[in-house]
């Protein structure tokens, strides 16, 4: 699985766990942890930004990998 130069980061404290990010992720890198918030597995994140585009509240942003 190819990872990108960027990865997605979720603001977990205010995430509403709707799951729209998980639904669009092509790599299955996003999961909803215990119905509380979205969690990104950065080892699988391709950095495509689809989840950030789909999050209704705009609570996902992209960061550069170190």
């Amino acid at each position, binding site marked *: 699985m190819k990872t990108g130069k960027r990865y997605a980061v979720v603001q977990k404290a*205010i995430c*509403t*766990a*709707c*799951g*729209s990010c*998980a*639904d*669009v*992720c*092509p790599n299955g890198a996003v999961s*909803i942890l*215990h*119905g*509380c918030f979205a969690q990104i597995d950065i080892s699988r994140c391709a950095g495509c930004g689809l989840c950030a*585009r*789909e*999050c*209704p*509240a*705009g*609570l996902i942003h992209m960061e550069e990998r170190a």
Partner: protein
Amino acid sequence: MKQHHWYHYLWLWSLLYFSLGFVHILFAWLGLISFILPLLFALFDGSKGFCNRYCDRGQLLRALGSQAGLSRRHNMPSFLYSRFFRYAFMLFFFAMFGSILWTTWLVAGGSSSLQSEVLLFWSIPLPWVWNLSAGVPLWTAQFAFGLYSLMLTSEILALAAMLWFRPRAWCTFCPMGTLTQGICRLKAAAPHNGTP
């Protein structure tokens, strides 16, 4: 390309539900499925599995907003997804549901007559002649009118939010979503049996 699953077509249930309601108001009772299933997922699975996959409204918003491209994708004001607004809206929504139950109780007890109309936003009657069968207890029809009003009003709010903001903008302040996330948070925070 993301795979399509069977549950991506659950938006058909939304269309069927609202169509059936116009054919016969007692079909509105089927709306209780959307109240009970998310609670069962939250209580027994500790997840928002219903919201994440099986919510017909969520799938309708996805189909219209993302797939059909109808969403303008403006940023939501942070107020709309703040914890204060979400819980206030949930309380308001369930207060309205409580008022439906109260009216149903009054009709069942004979102290109020049947109000055979669907109200949008709790005030605007829909111009439609509703089909009622003889022999059905009046309270069942009263509850159906109330529930259908609530479902239709929230559907319109959800579609408006989808059109102006992002496709699943409604989900950020959906009362059932707020309630089930609250249950999931409580379950996740509770100590598990057998663990120190």
